[in-house]
Protein backbone atom coordinates (compact mmCIF):
# COMPACT_ATOMS: atom_id res chain seq x y z
CA UNK A 1 0.00 0.00 0.00
CA UNK A 2 1.38 3.44 -0.94
CA UNK A 3 1.35 5.99 1.83
CA UNK A 4 0.49 9.51 0.65
CA UNK A 5 3.05 12.12 1.62
CA UNK A 6 3.66 15.75 0.96
CA UNK A 7 6.93 17.34 -0.04
CA UNK A 8 8.50 19.32 2.79
CA UNK A 9 9.08 22.31 0.54
CA UNK A 10 5.40 22.52 -0.35
CA UNK A 11 4.43 22.35 3.30
CA UNK A 12 6.88 25.07 4.22
CA UNK A 13 5.61 27.36 1.49
CA UNK A 14 2.01 26.92 2.51
CA UNK A 15 2.76 27.52 6.17
CA UNK A 16 4.85 30.55 5.34
CA UNK A 17 2.03 31.95 3.18
CA UNK A 18 -0.43 31.49 6.04
CA UNK A 19 1.82 33.19 8.54
CA UNK A 20 2.76 36.12 6.36
CA UNK A 21 -0.81 36.70 5.20
CA UNK A 22 -2.20 36.52 8.71
CA UNK A 23 0.56 38.64 10.20
CA UNK A 24 0.14 41.15 7.42
CA UNK A 25 -3.58 41.56 8.12
CA UNK A 26 -2.95 41.98 11.83
CA UNK A 27 -0.12 44.40 11.20
CA UNK A 28 -2.19 46.68 9.00
CA UNK A 29 -5.15 46.68 11.36
CA UNK A 30 -2.91 47.80 14.17
CA UNK A 31 -1.15 50.30 11.92
CA UNK A 32 -4.44 51.96 10.91
CA UNK A 33 -5.57 51.99 14.53
CA UNK A 34 -2.33 53.66 15.54
CA UNK A 35 -2.56 56.27 12.79
CA UNK A 36 -6.11 57.21 13.78
CA UNK A 37 -5.22 57.38 17.45
CA UNK A 38 -7.20 54.38 18.58
CA UNK A 39 -4.84 53.79 21.48
CA UNK A 40 -4.06 57.41 22.21
CA UNK A 41 -0.83 57.88 24.08
CA UNK A 42 -0.49 54.17 24.70
CA UNK A 43 0.14 53.07 21.12
CA UNK A 44 3.56 51.74 22.13
CA UNK A 45 1.87 49.46 24.66
CA UNK A 46 -0.34 48.05 21.92
CA UNK A 47 2.67 47.33 19.68
CA UNK A 48 4.61 45.90 22.61
CA UNK A 49 1.84 43.41 23.11
CA UNK A 50 1.33 42.59 19.43
CA UNK A 51 4.88 42.07 18.14
CA UNK A 52 5.87 39.18 20.43
CA UNK A 53 2.74 37.29 19.35
CA UNK A 54 3.92 36.92 15.75
CA UNK A 55 7.54 37.96 15.38
CA UNK A 56 9.23 34.88 16.88
CA UNK A 57 7.50 32.49 14.51
CA UNK A 58 7.77 34.84 11.54
CA UNK A 59 11.47 35.28 12.16
CA UNK A 60 11.93 31.53 12.30
CA UNK A 61 10.02 31.00 9.07
CA UNK A 62 11.77 33.68 7.06
CA UNK A 63 15.16 32.78 8.47
CA UNK A 64 14.93 29.13 7.52
CA UNK A 65 13.49 29.89 4.11
CA UNK A 66 16.26 32.36 3.33
CA UNK A 67 18.93 29.92 4.44
CA UNK A 68 17.47 27.19 2.29
CA UNK A 69 17.15 29.49 -0.67
CA UNK A 70 20.85 30.39 -0.67
CA UNK A 71 22.13 27.00 0.52
CA UNK A 72 22.50 23.72 -1.23
CA UNK A 73 19.33 22.04 -2.28
CA UNK A 74 19.21 18.72 -0.58
CA UNK A 75 17.09 15.77 -1.16
CA UNK A 76 13.38 16.41 -0.93
CA UNK A 77 11.94 15.14 2.33
CA UNK A 78 8.46 13.69 2.55
CA UNK A 79 6.09 14.79 5.29
CA UNK A 80 3.13 13.02 6.79
CA UNK A 81 0.03 14.94 5.59
CA UNK A 82 -1.53 14.66 9.03
CA UNK A 83 1.34 16.56 10.59
CA UNK A 84 1.09 19.26 7.96
CA UNK A 85 -2.67 19.65 8.39
CA UNK A 86 -2.29 19.72 12.15
CA UNK A 87 0.37 22.40 11.98
CA UNK A 88 -1.59 24.41 9.45
CA UNK A 89 -4.74 24.17 11.55
CA UNK A 90 -3.00 25.20 14.76
CA UNK A 91 -1.38 28.14 13.01
CA UNK A 92 -4.65 29.25 11.47
CA UNK A 93 -6.42 28.99 14.82
CA UNK A 94 -3.71 31.02 16.48
CA UNK A 95 -3.99 33.76 13.85
CA UNK A 96 -7.74 33.77 14.28
CA UNK A 97 -7.39 34.07 18.05
CA UNK A 98 -5.13 37.10 17.78
CA UNK A 99 -7.38 38.64 15.13
CA UNK A 100 -10.46 38.16 17.31
CA UNK A 101 -8.93 40.33 20.02
CA UNK A 102 -8.92 43.27 17.62
CA UNK A 103 -12.19 42.56 15.82
CA UNK A 104 -14.34 41.69 18.84
CA UNK A 105 -13.07 44.33 21.30
CA UNK A 106 -15.70 46.93 20.22
CA UNK A 107 -18.39 44.52 21.42
CA UNK A 108 -16.71 43.86 24.75
CA UNK A 109 -17.13 45.60 28.09
CA UNK A 110 -13.43 45.07 28.73
CA UNK A 111 -11.12 47.95 27.80
CA UNK A 112 -8.64 47.07 25.01
CA UNK A 113 -5.47 46.96 27.11
CA UNK A 114 -7.10 44.89 29.79
CA UNK A 115 -8.29 42.51 27.09
CA UNK A 116 -4.77 42.23 25.73
CA UNK A 117 -3.42 41.45 29.19
CA UNK A 118 -6.06 38.79 29.70
CA UNK A 119 -5.30 37.32 26.29
CA UNK A 120 -1.72 36.63 27.39
CA UNK A 121 -3.03 33.87 29.63
CA UNK A 122 -4.24 31.75 26.73
CA UNK A 123 -2.13 33.06 23.87
CA UNK A 124 1.07 32.10 25.67
CA UNK A 125 0.42 28.33 25.83
CA UNK A 126 -1.17 28.49 22.40
CA UNK A 127 1.96 30.05 20.98
CA UNK A 128 3.99 27.29 22.56
CA UNK A 129 1.94 24.69 20.68
CA UNK A 130 2.35 26.60 17.46
CA UNK A 131 6.09 26.88 17.93
CA UNK A 132 6.41 23.17 18.63
CA UNK A 133 4.40 22.27 15.54
CA UNK A 134 6.22 24.77 13.31
CA UNK A 135 9.53 23.49 14.58
CA UNK A 136 8.93 20.22 12.78
CA UNK A 137 9.04 22.09 9.49
CA UNK A 138 11.34 25.04 10.07
CA UNK A 139 14.08 23.77 12.31
CA UNK A 140 16.99 22.76 10.18
CA UNK A 141 17.79 19.13 10.82
CA UNK A 142 21.42 17.96 10.60
CA UNK A 143 22.30 16.36 7.28
CA UNK A 144 23.08 12.67 7.41
CA UNK A 145 26.64 11.97 6.45
CA UNK A 146 27.31 8.88 4.48
CA UNK A 147 30.50 7.02 5.41
CA UNK A 148 33.04 6.43 2.60
CA UNK A 149 33.48 2.98 1.32
Amino acid at each position, binding site marked *: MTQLTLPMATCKRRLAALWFAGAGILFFILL*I*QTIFGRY*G*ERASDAWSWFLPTIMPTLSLVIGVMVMEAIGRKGRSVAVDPFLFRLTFGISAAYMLAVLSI*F*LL*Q*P*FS*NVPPFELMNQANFWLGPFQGLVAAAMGAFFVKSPEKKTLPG
Partner: protein
Amino acid sequence: MDVTILLLVGLIVLVVILPPILFVHIFLYVQKKLGKRSAPRRAILYLGSIPVWLASLVMIVILRFPVKMDMIPLMKREMAAPAQREAIPRFPWPPPAASSFMTIPLMDFLDRDQPSLDEANRLLRSAFESAGYFELSYYAVPDGFALVSRVERIEPDGRPMAPPHRWEQGGAELSSFSLVGYVRSLFLAPPGYYRLIVFLLTPHPFAQSTRTVSREMAESWLRYGANALPEEISREPYSERFICTALIYEFEKYDTRRDAILRQPGRLSAMAHIEKSEIWRNLQ
Protein backbone atom coordinates in the same frame (compact mmCIF):
# COMPACT_ATOMS: atom_id res chain seq x y z
CA MET B 1 -13.69 65.31 90.36
CA ASP B 2 -16.73 63.43 89.14
CA VAL B 3 -16.97 59.90 90.47
CA THR B 4 -18.01 58.65 87.03
CA ILE B 5 -14.85 60.02 85.44
CA LEU B 6 -12.72 58.45 88.18
CA LEU B 7 -14.36 55.10 87.64
CA LEU B 8 -13.89 55.42 83.89
CA VAL B 9 -10.21 56.23 84.24
CA GLY B 10 -9.78 53.36 86.64
CA LEU B 11 -11.48 51.01 84.23
CA ILE B 12 -9.23 52.13 81.36
CA VAL B 13 -6.14 51.57 83.53
CA LEU B 14 -7.39 48.11 84.47
CA VAL B 15 -8.16 47.10 80.90
CA VAL B 16 -5.08 48.57 79.25
CA ILE B 17 -2.29 48.15 81.78
CA LEU B 18 -3.22 45.38 84.17
CA PRO B 19 -3.42 42.40 81.76
CA PRO B 20 0.18 42.64 80.48
CA ILE B 21 1.50 43.11 84.03
CA LEU B 22 -0.44 40.09 85.19
CA PHE B 23 0.81 38.13 82.20
CA VAL B 24 4.44 38.91 83.06
CA HIS B 25 4.02 37.92 86.71
CA ILE B 26 2.25 34.69 85.85
CA PHE B 27 4.91 33.87 83.25
CA LEU B 28 7.73 34.49 85.73
CA TYR B 29 5.99 32.52 88.45
CA VAL B 30 5.60 29.53 86.15
CA GLN B 31 9.18 29.86 84.99
CA LYS B 32 10.40 30.00 88.57
CA LYS B 33 8.57 26.82 89.35
CA LEU B 34 10.02 25.11 86.31
CA GLY B 35 13.56 26.57 86.26
CA LYS B 36 15.87 29.50 87.07
CA ARG B 37 14.78 33.09 86.60
CA SER B 38 17.16 35.59 84.98
CA ALA B 39 16.90 39.33 85.69
CA PRO B 40 17.13 40.76 82.13
CA ARG B 41 14.22 38.64 80.97
CA ARG B 42 11.77 40.47 83.26
CA ALA B 43 12.47 43.85 81.62
CA ILE B 44 12.12 42.37 78.14
CA LEU B 45 8.85 40.77 79.09
CA TYR B 46 7.44 44.06 80.34
CA LEU B 47 8.66 45.97 77.29
CA GLY B 48 7.26 43.39 74.93
CA SER B 49 3.93 42.51 76.50
CA ILE B 50 2.48 45.99 76.87
CA PRO B 51 2.70 46.99 73.16
CA VAL B 52 1.51 43.54 72.09
CA TRP B 53 -1.53 43.86 74.36
CA LEU B 54 -2.29 47.38 73.11
CA ALA B 55 -2.01 46.25 69.48
CA SER B 56 -4.37 43.35 70.23
CA LEU B 57 -6.87 45.77 71.77
CA VAL B 58 -6.76 47.98 68.68
CA MET B 59 -7.27 44.99 66.37
CA ILE B 60 -10.21 43.78 68.46
CA VAL B 61 -11.84 47.20 68.28
CA ILE B 62 -11.29 47.51 64.51
CA LEU B 63 -12.60 44.02 63.76
CA ARG B 64 -15.55 44.41 66.08
CA PHE B 65 -16.55 47.84 64.77
CA PRO B 66 -15.46 48.05 61.11
CA VAL B 67 -15.67 51.47 59.49
CA LYS B 68 -16.53 51.36 55.82
CA MET B 69 -14.68 53.91 53.75
CA ASP B 70 -17.81 55.18 52.04
CA MET B 71 -19.36 55.92 55.43
CA ILE B 72 -16.62 58.41 56.23
CA PRO B 73 -18.02 61.36 54.24
CA LEU B 74 -21.46 60.59 55.70
CA MET B 75 -20.00 60.53 59.20
CA LYS B 76 -18.16 63.78 58.56
CA ARG B 77 -21.39 65.35 57.41
CA GLU B 78 -23.18 64.20 60.53
CA MET B 79 -20.36 65.33 62.76
CA ALA B 80 -20.32 68.74 61.10
CA ALA B 81 -24.04 69.39 61.61
CA PRO B 82 -25.19 67.26 64.53
CA ALA B 83 -28.20 69.45 65.18
CA GLN B 84 -29.49 68.99 61.63
CA ARG B 85 -29.73 65.22 61.43
CA GLU B 86 -33.39 65.56 60.66
CA ALA B 87 -32.76 67.86 57.68
CA ILE B 88 -31.52 66.81 54.24
CA PRO B 89 -27.84 67.14 53.34
CA ARG B 90 -26.59 70.36 51.85
CA PHE B 91 -25.53 70.63 48.23
CA PRO B 92 -22.01 72.03 47.75
CA TRP B 93 -22.45 75.78 47.78
CA PRO B 94 -21.71 77.57 45.58
CA PRO B 95 -22.15 74.65 43.22
CA PRO B 96 -19.06 73.21 41.48
CA ALA B 97 -18.51 74.51 37.96
CA ALA B 98 -20.82 72.75 35.52
CA SER B 99 -20.28 71.96 31.84
CA SER B 100 -23.32 74.04 30.94
CA PHE B 101 -26.29 75.62 32.67
CA MET B 102 -29.53 77.44 31.98
CA THR B 103 -32.45 78.90 33.90
CA ILE B 104 -35.79 77.17 33.55
CA PRO B 105 -38.98 79.30 33.56
CA LEU B 106 -40.62 76.88 35.92
CA MET B 107 -43.34 79.33 36.93
CA ASP B 108 -44.72 79.18 33.38
CA PHE B 109 -45.23 75.43 33.71
CA LEU B 110 -46.98 75.45 37.09
CA ASP B 111 -50.78 75.39 37.09
CA ARG B 112 -51.61 77.06 40.35
CA ASP B 113 -51.48 80.80 41.05
CA GLN B 114 -49.63 80.47 44.34
CA PRO B 115 -47.74 77.23 44.14
CA SER B 116 -45.52 75.85 46.84
CA LEU B 117 -42.06 74.36 46.55
CA ASP B 118 -43.75 71.00 46.83
CA GLU B 119 -45.63 71.60 43.58
CA ALA B 120 -42.48 72.75 41.88
CA ASN B 121 -40.79 69.61 43.19
CA ARG B 122 -43.61 67.40 41.90
CA LEU B 123 -43.40 69.00 38.46
CA LEU B 124 -39.64 68.47 38.23
CA ARG B 125 -39.85 64.97 39.58
CA SER B 126 -42.61 64.07 37.18
CA ALA B 127 -40.59 65.48 34.26
CA PHE B 128 -37.58 63.44 35.38
CA GLU B 129 -39.51 60.22 35.85
CA SER B 130 -41.31 60.53 32.52
CA ALA B 131 -37.88 60.72 30.92
CA GLY B 132 -36.71 57.56 32.69
CA TYR B 133 -34.88 59.10 35.64
CA PHE B 134 -36.28 57.19 38.59
CA GLU B 135 -33.31 57.58 40.92
CA LEU B 136 -33.26 61.10 42.32
CA SER B 137 -31.82 62.69 45.41
CA TYR B 138 -32.56 65.89 47.30
CA TYR B 139 -30.17 68.37 48.80
CA ALA B 140 -30.74 71.62 50.63
CA VAL B 141 -29.58 74.90 49.10
CA PRO B 142 -30.12 78.39 50.57
CA ASP B 143 -33.92 78.76 50.98
CA GLY B 144 -34.57 76.03 48.43
CA PHE B 145 -33.51 72.61 47.28
CA ALA B 146 -31.52 70.76 44.65
CA LEU B 147 -32.76 67.72 42.77
CA VAL B 148 -29.99 65.46 41.50
CA SER B 149 -30.31 62.71 38.88
CA ARG B 150 -28.22 59.61 38.40
CA VAL B 151 -25.17 59.73 36.12
CA GLU B 152 -26.22 58.28 32.77
CA ARG B 153 -24.45 57.35 29.58
CA ILE B 154 -25.53 59.32 26.50
CA GLU B 155 -25.08 59.28 22.76
CA PRO B 156 -22.87 61.97 21.18
CA ASP B 157 -25.97 64.02 20.32
CA GLY B 158 -27.19 64.03 23.93
CA ARG B 159 -29.85 61.33 23.71
CA PRO B 160 -29.74 58.82 26.55
CA MET B 161 -28.39 55.45 25.51
CA ALA B 162 -30.85 52.62 25.33
CA PRO B 163 -31.10 50.46 28.46
CA PRO B 164 -29.21 48.68 29.96
CA HIS B 165 -26.24 50.64 28.62
CA ARG B 166 -27.77 53.91 29.80
CA TRP B 167 -26.90 53.24 33.42
CA GLU B 168 -23.68 51.32 32.85
CA GLN B 169 -20.39 52.94 33.77
CA GLY B 170 -17.93 51.86 31.10
CA GLY B 171 -20.07 49.46 29.10
CA ALA B 172 -19.52 48.13 25.58
CA GLU B 173 -18.77 50.76 22.99
CA LEU B 174 -21.40 49.46 20.58
CA SER B 175 -24.86 49.60 22.09
CA SER B 176 -26.41 48.69 18.73
CA PHE B 177 -24.65 47.30 15.68
CA SER B 178 -24.12 49.30 12.53
CA LEU B 179 -21.28 48.84 10.07
CA VAL B 180 -20.26 52.48 10.28
CA GLY B 181 -20.38 52.39 14.06
CA TYR B 182 -18.37 49.20 14.13
CA VAL B 183 -15.65 50.55 11.85
CA ARG B 184 -15.49 53.72 13.94
CA SER B 185 -15.13 51.71 17.13
CA LEU B 186 -12.50 49.45 15.54
CA PHE B 187 -10.18 52.16 14.23
CA LEU B 188 -11.00 55.25 16.22
CA ALA B 189 -11.21 55.87 19.93
CA PRO B 190 -14.71 57.17 20.49
CA PRO B 191 -15.09 58.18 24.12
CA GLY B 192 -18.00 57.34 26.34
CA TYR B 193 -20.19 60.34 27.17
CA TYR B 194 -21.86 60.71 30.57
CA ARG B 195 -24.21 63.27 32.02
CA LEU B 196 -25.64 64.30 35.36
CA ILE B 197 -28.46 66.86 35.68
CA VAL B 198 -29.08 68.99 38.77
CA PHE B 199 -32.04 71.30 39.18
CA LEU B 200 -31.48 74.06 41.73
CA LEU B 201 -34.41 76.05 43.11
CA THR B 202 -33.36 79.05 45.17
CA PRO B 203 -34.25 82.74 45.38
CA HIS B 204 -30.58 83.61 45.71
CA PRO B 205 -28.52 84.30 42.58
CA PHE B 206 -25.20 82.46 42.63
CA ALA B 207 -21.96 82.09 40.76
CA GLN B 208 -20.53 78.63 40.30
CA SER B 209 -17.36 77.91 42.22
CA THR B 210 -14.01 77.24 40.59
CA ARG B 211 -14.02 73.71 42.00
CA THR B 212 -14.49 70.92 39.54
CA VAL B 213 -16.15 67.63 40.24
CA SER B 214 -15.05 64.15 39.27
CA ARG B 215 -17.46 61.55 37.94
CA GLU B 216 -17.06 59.56 41.14
CA MET B 217 -18.00 62.59 43.23
CA ALA B 218 -20.97 63.28 40.96
CA GLU B 219 -22.09 59.66 41.37
CA SER B 220 -21.85 60.00 45.14
CA TRP B 221 -24.35 62.88 45.09
CA LEU B 222 -27.10 60.41 44.26
CA ARG B 223 -26.05 58.03 47.03
CA TYR B 224 -25.78 60.57 49.84
CA GLY B 225 -28.80 62.78 49.11
CA ALA B 226 -32.21 62.50 50.71
CA ASN B 227 -34.93 60.44 49.07
CA ALA B 228 -37.67 63.01 49.65
CA LEU B 229 -38.15 66.71 50.26
CA PRO B 230 -38.75 67.56 53.94
CA GLU B 231 -42.03 69.19 54.83
CA GLU B 232 -40.43 72.36 56.18
CA ILE B 233 -38.98 72.98 52.71
CA SER B 234 -41.86 71.72 50.59
CA ARG B 235 -44.52 73.91 52.23
CA GLU B 236 -42.58 77.10 51.46
CA PRO B 237 -44.29 79.20 48.77
CA TYR B 238 -42.77 79.18 45.31
CA SER B 239 -42.82 82.64 43.72
CA GLU B 240 -41.34 84.62 40.85
CA ARG B 241 -38.31 85.45 42.97
CA PHE B 242 -37.22 81.81 42.80
CA ILE B 243 -34.76 80.88 40.08
CA CYS B 244 -34.76 77.34 38.74
CA THR B 245 -31.33 76.56 37.32
CA ALA B 246 -30.39 73.40 35.47
CA LEU B 247 -26.73 72.45 35.94
CA ILE B 248 -25.40 69.91 33.44
CA TYR B 249 -22.23 67.98 34.33
CA GLU B 250 -20.88 66.32 31.20
CA PHE B 251 -18.08 63.72 31.36
CA GLU B 252 -15.98 61.99 28.72
CA LYS B 253 -14.14 58.72 29.20
CA TYR B 254 -11.70 57.17 26.76
CA ASP B 255 -11.10 53.45 27.21
CA THR B 256 -7.34 54.07 27.17
CA ARG B 257 -7.72 56.17 30.33
CA ARG B 258 -8.85 55.08 33.74
CA ASP B 259 -10.87 58.18 34.73
CA ALA B 260 -13.61 60.19 33.10
CA ILE B 261 -12.94 63.90 32.69
CA LEU B 262 -15.40 66.74 33.16
CA ARG B 263 -15.89 68.74 30.00
CA GLN B 264 -15.74 72.47 30.47
CA PRO B 265 -17.38 73.88 28.54
CA GLY B 266 -19.63 71.05 27.51
CA ARG B 267 -19.92 69.78 23.97
CA LEU B 268 -23.62 70.48 23.95
CA SER B 269 -25.60 73.37 25.36
CA ALA B 270 -27.71 72.93 28.45
CA MET B 271 -30.84 73.36 26.36
CA ALA B 272 -29.70 70.58 24.03
CA HIS B 273 -29.24 68.28 27.03
CA ILE B 274 -32.61 69.17 28.52
CA GLU B 275 -34.32 68.67 25.14
CA LYS B 276 -32.57 65.44 24.19
CA SER B 277 -33.26 63.94 27.60
CA GLU B 278 -36.98 64.72 26.99
CA ILE B 279 -37.20 66.61 30.26
CA TRP B 280 -38.12 69.83 28.43
CA ARG B 281 -41.04 68.16 26.67
CA ASN B 282 -42.26 66.67 29.95
CA LEU B 283 -42.13 70.02 31.72
CA GLN B 284 -44.47 71.67 29.23
